[in-house]
């Protein structure tokens, strides 16, 4: 749990996680905005539950840094753990969430990420999401990349349960805009995604997507120039570097394939933006592209 100053709902979130029917897990909290209120809440649970580990960051790392840190600490503390999930400090998880997601990963070695349908929590309301996305049964990396770039639900999938080794190979979180989308695209090269057709995650909805807010929270010391490039270009550059230059896809796939997948990502992400009615590209073009 990369925590950031949500003492108002933190206890509810932690209790939903500690109430999981699947008991063999640990909750590692790295707090990027330590305060007496937050530490009092988490310390209280850590005293009672040995699987709760709390660490406050001495300097602010920003959102990407904190997400990376929590993954690294979890891997250091539990190197034999096969699965990993990021959890927020404000959402709510159904008690069977971990049991159901782990069962999917246990049953199918080709699946690297399992996530459920979600419900959007609004003030005094709740809305079920009906959107579906998965790549189960798609064995080709290129086909998975194409489908993921076009259709994936990164905001929901990023809180799914993942194979820790695959996530590591995919590069964890990168210092780019929409890093969730970037890592999930990279992850699509390492295996399939399965959506469990049950609402088992309740997601707090506060504000819509905001690039400026992302830059501010990702880069506390100031946003680098490249962060103003289109996100697809940033993602292309990281995929190119990781898989075509550094050959991090080996032994599964080589540099040429890595180059091809990076190019596919760029092309199909642009296609997605052209086709998607509410895309930023459409907004930027100011209606030049006709609505389908």
């Amino acid at each position, binding site marked *: 749990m990369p925590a950031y100053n949500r003492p108002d709902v933190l206890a509810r979130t932690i*209790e939903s996680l500690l*109430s999981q029917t699947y008991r063999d897990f640990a909750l590692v909290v790295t707090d990027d905005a330590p305060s007496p209120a937050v530490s009092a809440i988490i310390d209280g649970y850590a005293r009672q539950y040995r699987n709760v580990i709390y660490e406050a960051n001495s300097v602010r790392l920003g959102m990407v840094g904190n997400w990376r840190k929590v993954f690294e600490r979890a891997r250091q503390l539990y190197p034999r753990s096969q699965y990993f999930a990021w959890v927020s400090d404000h959402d709510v998880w*159904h008690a*069977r969430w971990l049991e159901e997601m782990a069962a999917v990963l246990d049953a199918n070695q080709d699946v690297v990420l399992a996530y459920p349908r979600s419900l959007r929590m609004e003030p005094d*309301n*709740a809305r079920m999401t009906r959107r579906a996305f998965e790549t189960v049964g798609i064995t080709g990396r290129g086909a998975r990349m194409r489908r993921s770039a076009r259709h994936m639900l990164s905001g929901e999938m990023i809180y799914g349960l993942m194979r820790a080794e695959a996530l590591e190979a995919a590069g964890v979180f990168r210092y780019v805009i929409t890093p969730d989308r970037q890592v999930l695209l990279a992850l699509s090269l390492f295996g399939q995604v399965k959506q469990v057709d*049950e609402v088992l995650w309740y997601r707090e909805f506060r504000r819509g997507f905001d690039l400026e807010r992302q830059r501010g929270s990702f880069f506390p010391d100031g946003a680098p120039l490249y962060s103003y490039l289109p996100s697809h270009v940033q993602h292309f550059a990281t995929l190119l570097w990781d898989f075509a230059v550094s050959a991090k896809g080996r032994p599964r796939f080589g540099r040429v394939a890595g180059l091809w997948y990076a190019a596919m990502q760029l092309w199909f992400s642009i296609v997605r933006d052209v086709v998607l009615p509410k895309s930023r590209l459409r907004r930027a073009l100011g209606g030049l592209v006709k609505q389908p």
Partner: protein
Amino acid sequence: MSQQDTVSSSTAAFEHYLEVRNSIRGYRDMAAPADAFTQPERRMLSALDAMWDASPSIVSLLRQHCHPISGVCASDYHDPKRSLRARLDDEVARLLEHGDRALWIGEPAALGGFGIDALGTLYNEDTLRFFRVILLLQDAAVLKEFAGPGPRRTVWEIGGWGGFAYQFKTLCPNTTYVITGAPELLLFSAVYLMTLFPSARFRFYDRGCPDAFWTDWDAIDFAFAPESVGLEMQAPRLDLAVDLMTLERMTTSRIAAHVQRAHDLGSRYFVSMCPSGNPAAALASPVAPSLDRYYWPHPISTSRYLASALAARPREKDPVPRTYFLGWRRLRT
């Protein structure tokens, strides 16, 4: 239902009635002193008192005598007013549009079942209330735990006349269903359920051997005990507690004791149909404060979701506007 079926069902019902009455008559001595009851509770219990000496014909129409418990009156459905029919038809249509039709269970015609005749079944206000609770559990991904093939679950219903137990047990047979409350209420629920589930296994709390009540728990379908025993419940496990307008008739200390007991026994969920605000003391007690203390409100348990998905909007003209609460267990209280 043919005339022969009706006669045989009525005969069986009266035999069940005699058996149940014999089993639970002693519970009256175990009930709280009269001054522990609230005004609404005293009103309800005195209206049900005649059931201790019911004739076969009264038992054969048992369902039509449940009015003091749920407030739903059979006479309203003999020739239903257009406004009532229109409202219920609209609500049923919305519920079936939102929810899984396979979960719909109408009011059985047995024991004087009544309601609007449509969809191939009868339904009335109670039927809809129960269906809403079922859909609430379904939307919250809770029902699957009870309907699925996993380990046998325990459900505790506080009071009621047996109608929700009938719906729930039909959908989730692999559950042990405990009902506690005033003996007058048990007289209704036990006879009703015994008649509708003739091959189910029933157990009644016996003061002579109290520990036996809690043994071999998985071997029984329905268990009945007085309120005082419910508050000392020793069930090996508890998974869901249910209150459909029963707690609101109790004093706040008894409400809290029930919710706390469910929490202490580890009941992961608590579902309640209870007053939506602060009702007048002469009509009902507030239940929400006790629920909030021991259970987190489930994210779908919001007034707008209930109104849009479950057509459950507190009706202002009701003396006690009510809402539905589904909570999941707090680890700290």
